[in-house]
């Protein structure tokens, strides 16, 4: 069995590409801050996907060339972006009406923990010294039709992120539809966690050894 995790599995760029392939033409998509942002770079040719950013833009485009940044045209991570032709701006109550009202098709988020029934924890470790900050995560998971998580399979210290029950404060209960990690793609089903695809060099048994929650083979 391969034990050096760094040498097996996908790079996160490849994982982002997997996510992009699963988002159909014509979708309205919200990408979380950080690794989820990579997904926008891999939309297959011929597909049109419209990105929503909760601070008031539908039709978010890529990062502008150096020197052309506008500090009043930013994404949810407060980084400068562009607006594509056909984009529109709107205020925050409209933006979250799109989110909670079920108008967005996909949301791709990072995670601290995901449980076997699809509970998500991604806003706070609950440590007494941590400053709690939630942003739009709880609204997104409550309203967007499909919730995808993209994340390293394990924490930096090797602890499982896919667990029986989240120990961190929840963002929402039974909300995640699919998990994309460097080791596998896993569906959250009413029948439990079903492995959809294994990364190269990863066996089911190895994956299970890196996962606290019980996995099922497809």
């Amino acid at each position, binding site marked *: 069995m391969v034990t050096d995790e760094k040498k097996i599995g996908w790079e996160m760029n490849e994982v982002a590409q997997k996510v992009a392939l699963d988002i159909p033409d014509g979708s309205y998509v919200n990408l979380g801050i950080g690794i989820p942002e990579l997904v926008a770079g891999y939309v297959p040719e011929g597909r049109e996907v419209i990105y929503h950013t909760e601070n008031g*833009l539908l039709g978010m485009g890529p990062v502008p060339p150096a020197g052309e940044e506008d500090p*009043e045209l930013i994404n949810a991570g*407060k980084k400068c972006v562009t607006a594509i032709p056909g984009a529109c701006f709107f205020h*925050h*109550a409209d933006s*979250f009406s799109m989110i909670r009202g079920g108008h967005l098709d996909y949301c791709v988020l990072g995670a601290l923990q995901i449980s076997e029934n699809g509970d998500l924890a991604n806003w706070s470790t609950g440590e007494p010294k941590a400053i709690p*900050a*939630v942003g739009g995560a709880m609204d997104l998971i409550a309203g967007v039709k499909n919730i995808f998580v993209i994340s390293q399979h394990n924490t930096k210290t090797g602890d499982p992120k896919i667990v029986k029950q989240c120990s961190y404060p929840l963002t*929402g*209960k039974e909300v995640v539809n699919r998990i994309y990690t460097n080791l596998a793609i896993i569906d959250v089903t009413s029948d439990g966690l079903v492995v959809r695809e294994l990364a190269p060099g990863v066996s089911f048994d190895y994956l299970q050894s890196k996962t606290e929650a019980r996995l099922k083979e497809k």
Partner: protein
Amino acid sequence: MINKVVGSLKEAITDIFDGAIIMISGFGEAGSPIELIHTLIDHGAKNLTVVSNNTGSGHVGLAALIENRQVKKMICSFPRTANSKVFPELYHNGEIELELVPQGTLAERIRAGGAGIPAFYTPASVNTPLAEGKETRVFNGHKYVLEHGIRADFSLVKCKTADRYGNLLYNKTARNFGPIMCMAANISIVQAREIVELGAIDPEVVVTPGIFVQRVVHVSNPADESRLVAEDRRYPW
């Protein structure tokens, strides 16, 4: 004659009182009315409750207002950013209160406050610590949490274009909380890059109807907060 344009920043905020509830527009620096905030620092009103999505960056704008010990409580969704130093320190020392609200709930509470809706049910935060102690109810088999509208004594908002009736246009993603904060405050105070003649704004594209705005002040060249932070500037200068 209706003319909501006032002559100076100082005049615009002169009646802000100790203990007031103040909404401040902006998502990060985009839409943050930094000149109005700095004038409020000069003014000195204390024990303020501030409703704003974040808590400012560096030592200017909202962060400087907090650093000047004028804010007793923040109501916000994300009280830290890469460059926020002031709020974390005061929070750890127990010198400032925090009411953490999911971003969409914050927006809807403000909208509701401005729209005469005292409370509403939302799916956001159900089954999380942020719903603890709040009333819940099941509709169509799904659980929702009761949240209350917020009103403010004043709102401080930044826009791009205004006329003397208070009709407003914004710039790109700097719109964010501006329109709903204008609705939800007894006195909405707006700094505008340009003030135009009546009729110059196409009535079809007015974003904030003037009825929601009480005062407009001309700030033709507002500061870039990120530049001030990069230069490690501090207010008062």
